[in-house]
């Protein structure tokens, strides 16, 4: 589904944000990318949405090497994924309904389908009754729900969330993570970059820990342990040795 192959990113300032990262995320997985500020997790997310180009290496999404696609095809790539940001990034001159519908408008979806799909998604995120509200009439949690609704309205194969709970209080953050988990259960691959270690622990999902631009550990989060010195999550189930070919969940799904 998503594969980073020996990815390195050195910014023009000379800072190496990501250093020879290789990892594989299977279809339908829920993955957290964690690490302290400046560790390179946001760069990894940005490279997935092709906002930042790697200095070397390749990134495959659905089998397509996105490091080789032209600028003209970036919109097509982004249409295949939903993106959620810490700061919600809603269009403030559009209502909740219009914000969500916009994602369908840009792909020139049938208006009948838009009328059907948008209320469904708003219902899923619990905002159907606020469809005519403008973003500034909503709380932070509600705004993030709108952003999530917009991200999933086109049924993307993958949902990328960069610090989706960074601007929210703990209770609301938990609600948002639960919503992302629900979306994952419906089959969407979810990749979340976060600082929220308590939530990461509770969710018991795969956790890729990044330190100084490299993958420090890649394990299932059960029995959350925090190394306060490094800010890195430690847990007993280690997947860092796995590749696309020996990944257990992909074997299970393939019936192996």
């Amino acid at each position, binding site marked *: 589904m998503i594969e980073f192959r020996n990815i390195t990113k050195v910014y023009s300032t000379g800072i190496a944000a990501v250093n020879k990262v290789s990892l594989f995320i299977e279809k339908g997985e829920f993955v957290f990318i964690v690490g302290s500020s400046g560790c390179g997790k946001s760069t990894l997310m940005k490279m997935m949405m092709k906002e930042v180009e790697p200095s070397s290496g390749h990134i495959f999404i659905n089998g397509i090497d996105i490091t080789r696609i032209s*600028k003209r095809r*970036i*919109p*097509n790539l982004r*249409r295949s994924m939903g993106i959620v940001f810490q700061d919600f*990034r809603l*269009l403030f001159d559009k209502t909740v309904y219009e914000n969500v519908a916009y*994602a369908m408008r*840009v792909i020139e979806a049938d208006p009948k389908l838009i009328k059907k799909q948008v209320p469904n998604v708003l219902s899923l995120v619990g905002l159907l009754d606020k469809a005519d509200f403008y973003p500034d009439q909503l709380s932070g949690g509600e705004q993030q729900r709108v952003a999530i609704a*917009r991200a999933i309205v086109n049924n993307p194969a993958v949902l990328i969330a960069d610090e989706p709970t960074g601007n929210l209080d703990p209770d609301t953050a938990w609600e948002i993570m639960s919503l992302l988990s629900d979306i994952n259960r419906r089959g969407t691959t979810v990749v979340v970059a976060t600082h929220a270690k308590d939530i990461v622990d509770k969710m018991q999902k795969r956790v890729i820990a990044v330190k100084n631009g490299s993958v420090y550990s890649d394990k299932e989060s059960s029995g959350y342990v925090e190394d306060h010195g490094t800010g890195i999550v430690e847990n007993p189930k280690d997947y860092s040795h796995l590749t696309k070919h020996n990944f257990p969940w992909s074997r299970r799904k393939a019936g192996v």
Partner: protein
Amino acid sequence: MSLNTIGYLFKDSFHGMKKDFKNTLISLGTMFATMLLIAVAYLVYMNENKLINDTKDRSSNIVAYVNIDVTDEQAKQIGYKIEEIRGVTSNTYRDKDYAIELAKSMNPIMVEGFSDEILKTIYPAYYVITFDDVTMIDVITHELGKITEIEDVSVNQYAAAKARDAEIYKAVAIVAVIYIIEFSVFLMMNTTKLMMYSKRKEISIMKYVGAKNNFIRAPFAIQGVLTAIVSVGLTMLVINVAYPAFIRSMTTLESGFSFIAFGSLFKELALLLVVIGVLIGIVGSSASMKKYLDV
């Protein structure tokens, strides 16, 4: 792009203008000022041209008097030399008999009592020389002076001076028009840039949702076109009132020049403004948002 999408983009443009009314007003005001300046520049230029043409009509001939001792046959040969002078479009020879007859008809008292033989020693044969370009008056006069058989050259000095003035006015008008248009476009581009800067976040969001550049540009371009059309309408209204009033005030000053009636310029000016306005609207918004599209 489907009809439904086009309809949506138009609706979105109207909605955007209504929602962002402050910026819409700023944009409209700037575009109106731009259109008004261009319209004024255009009217100045057209009237300047008319002034030059009017002057040209009044001063489009030079009279070259042939030396009184030159015979009729020799005088006719001068015509070939005149023909070769740059700027001359035609020359007509009038012999002494013609000159005497003209004098008799115009001022009979002056010639009364003189025989034709004596009059032939007073009234010389002459050439009436025409030209198209009034700026050539000095050159032609100078060249005529070099022909030994020509004794004197007469130019309508007032008309020639007017023609020279008109040329200066025209040059000033052209420079002014260029500066006005340059300033107007600069003004419009900067206003659009400021508007686009305020929309940069919105544009980046659209890019993350997967919108293609044309889909993002379209509402802004439509807004630019709508703003241009409304501005042109307002400009034409203002000019329709102000220009005739200006003409009336100038007529009372007895300038002696008749301005072009607005009715005859209306269609041409409206078309010119719509074309310039729409171009500024589309190109201005597209060029200004280019850097924000690279997300």
